[in-house]
């Protein structure tokens, strides 16, 4: 059975966006827990608040109110530099638009967060090669990001996300910009790294992508409206073992 240690504890998270006249409640008192080793998909139509939730979980944005504890640390009370540290060491991001450094080799892209973390140079390259090989890009180490396909770029992003062994991997529509065949490959990689013990939180609006997760949280109008275990996936996972 998975460890019951809560990696994420969100209590009454709210986020209000203010433009000149209108206040939009993007998140409305959302509370939940995610334990270590889980693979959670957050689903919902656009405007449901799932992206906002994702940004707050990723310490990319601050909630208007509520409490967010990541791996035992209250994120709200942290300084800008401490937040940078959290994003660096505790969170691995996989974005819909890949967000790799343009015209830069895959190796350098994967090494970048390790450079910010102060990992010694030789070790950085060693780890980057290891993770790139793991996502199947061992033969593309010196290709620049514009020389590889979208699916390959997303695999570089995954290698980058796991390079510092973070507490959680946050994936925001990771297959949104990728052809469906390659999307399947990406999901297989996510499942593989989840099996190795990484906690994954993934946002998607595609049900067949959410299928791959072990737990599906559904959102609508800034609230959680569903939170179910994906029994099929769990069964599959166990039978496979």
């Amino acid at each position, binding site marked *: 059975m998975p460890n019951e240690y809560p990696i994420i504890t969100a209590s009454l998270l709210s986020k209000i966006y203010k433009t000149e006249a209108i206040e939009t409640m993007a998140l409305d008192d959302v509370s939940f827990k995610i334990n270590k080793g889980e693979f959670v998909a957050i689903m919902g139509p656009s405007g449901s608040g799932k992206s906002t939730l994702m940004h707050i979980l990723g310490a990319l944005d601050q909630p208007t109110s509520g409490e967010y504890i990541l791996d035992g640390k209250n994120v709200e009370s942290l300084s800008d530099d401490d937040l940078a540290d959290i994003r660096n060491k505790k969170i691995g991001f996989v974005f819909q638009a890949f967000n790799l*450094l343009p015209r*830069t080799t895959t190796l350098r892209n994967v090494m*970048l967060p390790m450079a910010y973390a102060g990992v010694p140079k030789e070790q950085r390259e060693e780890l980057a090669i290891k993770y790139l090989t793991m996502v199947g890009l061992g033969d593309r180490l010196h290709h620049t990001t514009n020389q590889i396909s979208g699916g390959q770029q997303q695999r570089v992003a995954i290698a980058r996300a796991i390079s510092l062994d973070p507490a959680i991997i946050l994936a925001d529509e990771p297959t949104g910009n990728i052809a469906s065949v390659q999307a399947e490959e990406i999901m297989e990689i996510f499942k593989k790294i989840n099996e190795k013990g990484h906690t994954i939180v993934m946002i998607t609006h595609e049900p067949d992508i959410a299928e791959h997760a072990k737990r599906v949280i559904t959102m609508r109008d800034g609230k959680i409206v569903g939170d179910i275990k994906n029994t099929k996936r769990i069964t599959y996972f166990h039978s496979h073992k």
Partner: protein
Amino acid sequence: MEISEIILESISSLTLNKLRTSLAMLGIVIGIGSVIALVSLGQASQQSVQSTIQSLGSNLLTISSGSQRNGTVRGAAGSQATLSNADATAIATSPKITTVKNVSPEYSGRSQVITGSNNTNTTILGVVPIYAGVHSVSVSSGSFITERDVNSMTKVAVLGPTVVTDLFGEGVDPLGQKIRIGSQYFTVIGVTTAKGGSGPSNQDDRIYVPLTTAQKQLFGVKNLTSIAVEAIDATAMTTAVDEIGYLLLDMHKITDPTKADFSIMSQADMLSTASQVTGTFTTLLSGVAAISLLVGGIGIMNIMLVTVTERTREIGLRKALGAKKKIIITQFLVESVILTFTGGILGILLGILLAFIYARLTSGAFVISAASIFLAFVVSTVIGVVFGWYPAQRAASLQPIEALRYE
């Protein structure tokens, strides 16, 4: 992350975006280069004016015969025959004169000069050998007027290069040829080295003949039009003016110095007049340089603002991956410094090259002012760094998600 690594990151970021980097650098190169070229152009012109004046002779005093007075109407200087050979001899030999090195009595007149089918009207200068030393005139071929020529009143002439061209055409050796000045024939014994200049002060458009020949044979006069005096050094100029002034007043039996029938003009007077003119010129050019510096500065500011703002998303990504604000700002600062520094050096080279080409084309002086290089470099570097830093620090202060979404 260590500073050496940030520098490497900056360099790789600059080399990865060659177009962006070279465009930004181009703005800096042009900004700095134009300022340096303009200032150099101004200073070269200033120097060429000064050197033209200086080429007339250094430590030089010119005594001209005074103006004629008809009641209250005063004529032009030199219109009265008040200077004599005796005056020149007195200045050279009087024990009261202590600061004079050389004295050159001169008679200047104009005459028609004819050779074969060509003729010209030019200045005929009656001189003694010391004239060449006092006025820094040298001969490119043949020889100058000698003591023997003056003593025996020979009919020999030394021609300026312009006269040679006028009378004989290009590429003809005039040495030994006969020319007719007025009604008399002279043998050409030398040609002077070209000095440049134009108009009436063109020292190349002259014929030098022995002083005695000019006075007695050509113009039938006994007086001098001017006496050039070379003082022992520049600091003795004022003393020399006083000594000569009193000596001549004495010789001409004039008691009131305001009624002197001669005037003494020093090289320093001419230089100060000229430097007033070039001073105005320099002020004007400084203004032009200041404006180009301003325009160049705005160009640099613009390109830095655009290139850094354009990278807000990249800054957002770097923050998302864990870069601290300080590291991002340092990276952009290092990039700005490298960019403006490299651009600055290229700009300096461009400016020097332009100034050099200008000097070559105008065969003028090639002057580069260290102050203009320093000023242009400092101003553009400061602008480049400030406007590289400012948008970077603004972007680095955003919430990472805002920077990531920046359009």
